[in-house]
């Protein structure tokens, strides 16, 4: 291996690692606020990517009907769960969020999709179509479970992944899609040729991280989310609605997932079930970071990205094996450091 190959592999790893970092951040966030280990995070990536690919080729994405369906299900589910409490204003807000919002997005897509409204509009549209699915799914699958154990929530998340993969097949079909890159620019830096898409990915990732940081540090809503993450009961006692915190956390997860999908679909062909493997890398990173540390997760994600690109160079058939079994020594290390985990829920 010479220096230029080394640098290319590092570059590749860092670009992929940036995406994994976003996913790892969102996993840590969702776990902290809701105690859900969101195995289904990858589905939002796949759906986001496929939706953008469809829009970028002037097609109407099937995802809008999935969005409508999930909105309807969330409306019915919410109505049923809170049939005694929901009246007037709350009912209206619920209907606006679960019925009017998807209807507006569907209408906008039907109008804009055939007209090729440009990259910015198409990116925004793709993200807008996929993002609300996550909070709808939270309402349907997780909110009724209330104070269930982490394990029950995890099994639910896996079940959700299963159902979403099947739904992905129904709404996107078995073929994979790829979108044209955001820009054809190519930057030469020594031996490296950095494609415009990579710059987009790194730039948007960085911007998003800064945005998240500002959100959690500066805004009241962000602080409320952090409070919920530290102590759910305490947060509820001071008047923070923890269910809404869950909806918000899932909204962020959906947004990050969808955006990640939009960013990678010009780089690689995305299939309806391809999100799982991408999400799982975010997972590996989140676990290496200890499921609690944001900087730790980001650092670990970059490591996972680089490890992946090097192992695909040396032993491409065993790239997945190497990336995922790397988790075992990490767990061993945590286990030795952590001592006896006699925690009870």
């Amino acid at each position: 291996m010479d220096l230029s190959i080394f640098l290319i592999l590092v570059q590749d790893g860092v670009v992929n690692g940036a995406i994994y970092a976003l996913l790892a951040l969102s996993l840590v966030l969702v776990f902290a606020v809701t105690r859900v280990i969101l195995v289904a995070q990858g589905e939002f990536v796949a759906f986001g990517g496929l939706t953008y690919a469809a829009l970028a080729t002037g097609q109407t994405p099937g995802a809008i009907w999935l969005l409508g369906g999930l909105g309807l299900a969330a409306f019915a589910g919410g109505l049923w769960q809170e049939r005694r409490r929901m009246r007037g204003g709350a009912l209206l807000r619920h209907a606006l969020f679960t019925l009017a919002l998807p209807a507006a997005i569907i209408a906008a897509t039907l109008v804009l999709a055939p007209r090729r409204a440009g990259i910015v509009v198409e990116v925004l549209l793709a993200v807008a179509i996929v993002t609300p699915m996550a909070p709808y799914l939270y309402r349907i699958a997780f909110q009724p479970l209330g104070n269930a154990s982490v394990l029950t929530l995890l099994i639910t998340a896996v079940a959700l992944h299963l159902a979403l993969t099947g739904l992905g097949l129904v709404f996107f079909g078995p073929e994979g899609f790829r979108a044209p890159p955001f820009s054809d620019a190519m930057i030469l830096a020594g031996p490296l040729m950095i494609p415009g898409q990579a710059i987009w990915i790194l730039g948007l990732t960085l911007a998003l991280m800064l945005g998240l940081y500002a959100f959690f540090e500066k805004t009241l809503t962000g602080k409320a989310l952090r409070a919920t993450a530290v102590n759910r009961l305490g947060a509820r006692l001071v008047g923070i609605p923890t269910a809404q915190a869950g909806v918000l956390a899932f909204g962020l997860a959906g947004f990050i997932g969808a955006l990640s999908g939009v960013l990678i679909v010009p780089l690689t062909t995305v299939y309806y079930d391809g999100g799982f493997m991408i999400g799982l890398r975010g997972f590996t990173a989140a676990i290496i970071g200890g499921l609690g540390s944001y900087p730790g997760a980001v650092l670990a994600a970059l490591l996972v990205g680089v490890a992946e690109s090097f192992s695909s160079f040396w032993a491409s058939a065993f790239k997945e094996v190497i990336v995922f079994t790397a988790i075992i020594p990490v767990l061993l290390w945590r286990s030795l450091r952590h001592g006896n985990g006699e925690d009870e829920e």
Partner: protein
Amino acid sequence: MTRPGLAKLWPLACIALAGLVPWIPGMPAFWVTLLNYTGIAAIVAIGLVVLTGIGGMTSFGQATLLGLGAYTTAIMSKYYDLSPWLGLPAGLLVTAAGATLIGAVTVRLSGHYLALGTIAWSVGLYYTFANLDLVGRNDGISGIPPLEVAGYRLLDARMSFTVIWLGVLLAALATMNLLDSRAGRAIRALKGGAVAAASFGVDTARTRLLAFVYSAVLAGFAGWLYVHMQRSVNPTPFGFYQSIQYLLMAVIGGAAHIPGALLGAALVTLVNDRLQDILPKLFGARGNYESIVFGMLLIAVLQWAPDGLWPLIARFRPRRRAIQADAPRLAAQTMPERGSTLLEVVRLRRNFGGLVAVNDIDFTLKAGEILGLIGPNGAGKSTTFNLITGVDTPSGGIVRFRGGDLTGRPARHVAAQGIARTFQHVKLVPTMSVIENVAIGAHLRGHASPLAGLLRLDRAEDARLYAEAARQLARVGLADAADRPATSLALGQQRIVEIARALCLDPVLLLLDEPAAGLRHNEKAELSTLLRRLRDEGVTILLVEHDMEFVMGLVDRLVVMDFGTKLADGPPDAVRADPRVIEAYLGSVE
């Protein structure tokens, strides 16, 4: 006394009868095959009953473990011409080794790490199977020999049926035996009672590992049956998706019940087969559409029937346990000489961040006395208890017991020294009867290995443990409640059950955390009598209590704590007159 065991045997009788099903004239071969798959899945699901329903852990890698067993025997019998019967022990060994590796690195962490670890490694192993030349990559291995019995090759699906359902029977029996043994009680105590179990000497990390390895071995066994029935193997049935299906079976059927595993396996296998027929026609294309149905089904079950379907069919009722009152008694400790120093606590300290919960506490405890630890709410009494018993680790100071250093030792080590305790928030296992809960207290006085339990070689010892549990229950006056579910008792009585459990350890020192809370007046009097009698028999008692009347009439000496520090130490009358104590309890009189 009802006929013991008979009620428990009917599911086994059903399985035995089911062995005749494929020989019914006119039985379509298709149904026999489907039932074969049901049987194999049921074995995996029974393993998950132990792991998930009873042990409170989960694995998303059972299909991969099945694959490990399957590939091991496939390679041995196809490439090395060894008998499939040799592939069985080898396959079990390989799955056990794999599970030990993944289990050992996760069992000390919070429960969900095992689940996450199994996701990662099952994906990893799946790609290993799919890319390794040795195992034929994605094509797998075909032409694997069938099982042979006395030179007769079991090629007929009906023959496989008999073998597979014998396997189910074996797995169910072994699991029932295991759960009824000393090791099994430890597994059952994991869910909701891990801290209590550790306080009675159960090594909870090893017990978690045991549950996982046991479930893996059953999966490996299922893999062996699968390969020699199917006679070919490829990576597809060993992926993540299949693992979720096994979990679905266990959860739908009722993850805490063996018959539930059979029910779940049958339901999912049959429904899966139907859906694979119907859904592609509905959607007009081939694909895993059934995953939508299964995913939604799993979510629905977790929301509406989290205990699965089996409890809706049969209600939980602990069986009556026959006690062999004449079983030889367990060996007992020699009590230390009355008046000798038993426990020394020197400058014991515990900080939580900036808060000092226990601030340089000193006291000693002499053999044969009853010492009361009292103080207002938040004085640090329970924290002190947890520091002595190894549930929590001190930030500083020394705990010495019978001359040996106990500071910072784990709870099970403390228990092994002859220190038994009860809990302020009662920690009994709800799915076990009163006497089964009490028997956990005698964990360290038995030695039977899990394997002995599995093979029923532990009966003599187990009878002695149960006889001891029955004696201690009688001693605290709850003999009549022995076979009731533990949490059906009133809270005050549950505290007494905890005392019986602690006595089962044969303790030198008994630590009681608010034993009289929730008791009625005459029950308190009985408790006082019991504790005095224990003292007279040589047991030393340290108790935390709020009920002043109860404490004053009972203890030999009092230690008063407030805001983590010791206020007073002495006989009850002297302490009662101490102005600092009065101020702490009644507020300043200035």
